Structure formats: structure tokens, C-alpha cells
């Protein structure tokens, strides 16, 4: 636990107490809207709109969850989102990883300019790119395919990931690689067998960043895919915001379901994630 400075004997000092108090305050603020959403999703249709609102559902009503899971195509959307997210993580990490390594290690001219150029491309507002990309997609015959989604997400995430990963590779001591190469290892082998395993946390953290982005994106998914069988969850959520009114119960049930996978992913990876960001971002 490097860096934790609440060491020593003063275990129940006033500081710790204060820490807990402040953290509890933080938690209250972060989870209240979500808890309120969860409560709403467990209410029956009539009770949802009751005013003054009931704090606990009078009768636990799971019909909203039932409708979302069994009466809509949500399971398909869910599968699509998982697949697209997985492929994007894979593609963007591989592509950005190689690029970042090359910029970090190889003797390339105009490195600085290149890095700034890369950063610049991630500054463009997405709304400006939609119509050009749409037209390109239709011309290339890849509109309305999952491939198009993966392509757009991957290329939009690549600049940011290259930036983060470059910072990370910069912080991996170069001496180990040099030693390996003196031993007769090729550059390629060094990268795959030494640098990548050592950079695992950085890779995990960038993967998680991509996951959250892709999982939540509405704009790209809505624009480039109209087929029901290719729809993703973020677009699926919109089907509860109808022209007849917002169906709060079903919408919020669907929201609760969609945040579960990302939370699980985060819990599983958070240790590595935090470490990864440490090495990567500090130098970036």
C-alpha cells in the first residue's frame, strides 16, 4: 500500500472519523439518484406517478423488469452490446497499444507533433462527423452492420487510448527491454513477451475506459444501425421514451439492468484499473 499515509497507531483518530463522514456524504450524493431510480422501477404503474411519492414501494412490483426482460428484445440488445463492446476493446487496445509503443520507443521524427495531432483528432465534436461518416458508410456498403459500429468506436477511441498507453509505456523501464534484446530477443518478441505482460494494468484500464464509452454510446449506435437484430442497449433504452410519454417504470428497470455488467466489470478489474491509471496517466 504505497502512498497510504494513515499509517501508525492512531487508528481511531478524529481524521478517520471525519474521513468516514465525508465519504458517507459522497456516497449519499452518488447513489441517491440511482436508488431513487431503483425504487421507482419496483413500483406499479399507478404508484410511480403518485404525489407525494412513496419512499418504499407499497407492493413490490416486478412487472417492469418482467416487461423489459421478457416482452421486449432486450436480451438481443444486451448480447449485441456485449459483443460490440468486447470487439471494440480488443481492436482499440491492440491498435492503440502498437501505435503507443512505436511512439514511445522507436526513433520517429516529429513525435511531439504526431502526439498533438492524435490528441487533436479526439477533440472534434462527434456531431460534426456523423453525416460524413454516414455517407461514407453507405458508399462503402458497410452501413447497417455491426462492423460499422466497431469501426467507428475503435477509431474514435484510438487517439485517446494511444495517449494513455504511450504514457504508460514511457513509465516501463527501458533497461529490461534492452537487456532482453542484448540476449538476442527481437524487438517484436520483446514487445509481446516482456512489455505487454508488464503493462497489463495499463491495458486493463484503457480497456475499461473503452468499455464504458461503447456501452453507453447512443449517437453512433443509433445513427449507423437501424436493424432490430443489431440494436444495442443504449438505443433499446430509448424505446421507453415514447411519443406517448416516458414509461418511467420500464425505462428505469432497463437502466438498472444495463448498469450491472459494467459495475461487475469494474469490481473485477478495479484493483488493476487503479494501478494502471497510475502508471499511465501520471506521465501522460
Amino acid at each position: 500500500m504505497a502512498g497510504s499515509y494513515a499509517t501508525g497507531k492512531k487508528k481511531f483518530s478524529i481524521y478517520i472519523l471525519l474521513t468516514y463522514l465525508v465519504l458517507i456524504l459522497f456516497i449519499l450524493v452518488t447513489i441517491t439518484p440511482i436508488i431513487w431510480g431503483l425504487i421507482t422501477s419496483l413500483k406499479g404503474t399507478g404508484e410511480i406517478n403518485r404525489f407525494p411519492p412513496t419512499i418504499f414501494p407499497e407492493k413490490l412490483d416486478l412487472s417492469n423488469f418482467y416487461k423489459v426482460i421478457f416482452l421486449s428484445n432486450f436480451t438481443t440488445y444486451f448480447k449485441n452490446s456485449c459483443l460490440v463492446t468486447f470487439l471494440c476493446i480488443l481492436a482499440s487496445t491492440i491498435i492503440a497499444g502498437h501505435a503507443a509503443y512505436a511512439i514511445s520507443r522507436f526513433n520517429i521524427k516529429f513525435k511531439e507533433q504526431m502526439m498533438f495531432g492524435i490528441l487533436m483528432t479526439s477533440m472534434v465534436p462527434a456531431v460534426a462527423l456523423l453525416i460524413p461518416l454516414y455517407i461514407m458508410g453507405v458508399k462503402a456498403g458497410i452501413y447497417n452492420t455491426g462492423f460499422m459500429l466497431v469501426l467507428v468506436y475503435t477509431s474514435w477511441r484510438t487517439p485517446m487510448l494511444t495517449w494513455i498507453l504511450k504514457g504508460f509505456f514511457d513509465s516501463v523501464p527501458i533497461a529490461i527491454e534492452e537487456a532482453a534484446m542484448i540476449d538476442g530477443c527481437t524487438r517484436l518478441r520483446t514487445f509481446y513477451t516482456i512489455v505487454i505482460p508488464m503493462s497489463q494494468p495499463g491495458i486493463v484500464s484503457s480497456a475499461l475506459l473503452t468499455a464504458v464509452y461503447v456501452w453507453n454510446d447512443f449517437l453512433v449506435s443509433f445513427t449507423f444501425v437501424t436493424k432490430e437484430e443489431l440494436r444495442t442497449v443504449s438505443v433499446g433504452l430509448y424505446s421507453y421514451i415514447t411519443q406517448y410519454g416516458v414509461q418511467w417504470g420500464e425505462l428505469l428497470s432497463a437502466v438498472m439492468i444495463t448498469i450491472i455488467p459494467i459495475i461487475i466489470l469494474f469490481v473485477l478489474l478495479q484493483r488493476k484499473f487503479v494501478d494502471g491509471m497510475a502508471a499511465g496517466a501520471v506521465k501522460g
Partner: protein
Amino acid sequence: MKRFVIAMISLALVFSMTACGNTASTEESGGTSANKTSSGSDVKGSDLTLWIFLNPESKDDPRNIVLKDIVDSYNANNTMGSKVKVESIHYSKFEAQAIQAAAAGTGPDIVNVYTDMLKQHIAGGTIQPMTKYAEEFIPTIEGYTYTADSLKINNEIYTLPWESRTFVFWYRSDIFKDVPKSLGELSSLAGAQSTALAQGFVIGLSDGSNSASFMESFIPFIRSAGGAIFDDSGKAVFNSDEGVQVLNYMKSLIDSKAMDKTTLSLGVDEVVDAFKAGTILSCNAGTQRAATIRGSELNDKIKSAPMLGFKDNEPSPAVVAGQSLGIGKFCKNTDAAFDFIKTFYTKDNQVKWLKANVLPAVKSAYDDAEIKAMSNYEELVSWNEYASKGKVEFYPADYSELSVKLVQAAQNVLFNGKDAKTELDTVANWYNDKNQK
């Protein structure tokens, strides 16, 4: 040097990629056009795509089920051998998606268009006229609400409405013993009923979602006062005395405390939600929202009536709008597309829509025995009666922009002490200048 080499290689790859892309697309279009020419001999059908805001794969809304039913039975029974595939497009982004597709030279074969947005679709190049088909077909629909002439835009028919909705006054019968006689009476009655938490009568003035809540009241009110939004040549004339009267009426709602400042953030969805919660005691809203409104726990105390007008016992002229079907600009097999469109207007299918709380466009649907047995039959008939006095109107292509400007004018009049005439003049002049060029 290296950078230059890299750049060259990348550029080469870009070009080869786009080249590949082009061949791929020509191949594809070649394939489909072959399919289409063979179908030219008017018996063959095609694979057709329908873009609509409903989603037949979702079974949680009766309207979706009806659509699935209609599409499935058409696919199974049509004599042309067509197959219709539905792609559901979110209603709030429908126009954007269709116009974008049209710009790329693609789009669905059959498009569902909300009549308010029809001119935007035409201007955006998403649909093609189907006058010939429609003129032949309309007389054969038993009890169709619309005449061919009423649907013409520049002498062409683009879509046929299959649904009609109108905008009515919803009120709480426990608060208002009788329907107020006029808007003036409503203002004072509603004002008296307002409390710190509840507002008596609210028109939402948020500029979100095309300021629908405001426009749904502004248009019938201005007509009730004897004015209009546009004259016959399409010039904006809402800066008339009647327009001023309407804005001043809305201002009087603030003065009488019938509504408060929170209206600034209320769109039509929020107004309906608050009405269901009982914190808004009456409002104007479309009949298509009936099922949602009736989901409230206060349902027993909720009634509807024709939208009130300025004169006693004389409702505002009904505003009618609806969902309609047209043929996509890039549809090759228009025969097949229209053949599918026709199924929406059979009495059987119209009855199905009515059962799912969608007001039909065919009057004979109300004669159906099962419909007559419905518990809300009387209300349905009353809406139909009210709607039949109005007519569907097609708003200009730049209606979205105009309505946001109008609601902002209203906001300024109600809350910033601006003069109604000046504000309306500004908007009208902006609009007329823009469209004169």
C-alpha cells in the same frame, strides 16, 4: 522521411479502401436493381423496408403488437410475394435519420411520417409522391376521414394518414364540477384551485421537443380567436391581434396563478406526468396520450372535453394530426410498397388500432361491435366527433425552428415583461424575410 513514407502508404490504403467500398456498393445496388427490374411485371413483390416509430419486436405496448400482427399477416398472405421488414426508428430522431439516409442516397421503401413533419420530409427528399396510387385508392376506403384534395401538397399526395389524433382538454372532475365554459372562465377557476403544490391549468413552455406543449395550445387558441398562423400563401400572420390576444391570455394564467414559473421547464411529457401525479389539475394534451394518462391512480377523476375556446360554449377549432404512410424516395418497387400501405386502411386493421387506443382514420371502425362494447367508447366517439370538425394541416418544413422561436417569444412575454405584439412581430418578420428570399 519515414513520416512521409507512412503518410503515403496510409493514403494509398485509404484510396484502395474507398475504391473497394465503391465496387462493393455498385455490386450491391446492381444486385438489388436486378431484383427490382424482374419485379417490374407488376405481379412480383420485393423485400421492403418500413421505417416506423413503433417496434413490432417489443410486446409491451399494444400498438406494437398490432403492427406486428398487420405486418406478419401481410407477409404471409400478400399475393405479390413481398416481404416487409420493419426497422424501428426513435420518434424524436426520425426526421434526422431519414434525411441523413436520403443524403447518402438510401432509405426505406415505406416511411411512416407524422403529418406535422411531412413538409420537412418532402424538403429533405425522403419520400416520393404517390398521387396516382392514392387517388385511385382513396375512394375505395370505406369511410375514410380524408379526401384526396385535403392531402395534396403542391398537387401531389405524399402520404395517407392511418391514424388521427386531436388535442383535447383534460381535467380533474373532482376539482372542476363542470367543464369551464370558456378559456376566460378556466383561467379564473383554475387560478382559484391552485395551491403551493398544485397548478390549476398549465401550458408547458419548455423549448424542448419542438415546444410541442405550447404549439398544441397556441394553434387552436389563435384559431378560436379568429386568427391563423399562416395565410393561404404561407406567410406568417400570427403577429395579428389574435396572436397577441393568445399570448396575453397565457400571461393572464400567470396573473391568475393558474400556472407558475415552473412551466418554463415543462414539456408535454412533464405536463402529462404532473397531471397524472395530481400536481397539475388540467391541461391540453393529445388523444394519443390517453392510455398513458389513464394509467394514473387518479383515473376515476380524469375527464376529457373538446379544447376550450375564447367564446362561451364554443370549443377551439380542432387541430388534427396523425401518423401516415408514404413511399420512400429510393424505393424501386413502388407497386409493392403501395400494396403494403393499403393494408393499413382495411376496416379490420383500423379496428385493431382503435382497440390499441389509436384513433383510426376510417370512421367505420367505430361501427364495430367489439369497439362499441369498449368501456371508453363514448369518449372515443366524442373525440372522433370533435376531430371531424377540424382538418389535418401540414406545417412548413422549418416548423421546428419556428415553433422554438415562438415559444421563446411567449417565454419573454410571460416572464420578462416583454410586449406581446413586438415579440410576435420579430418572429413573424424573421420568418417572412427568411422565406421570401
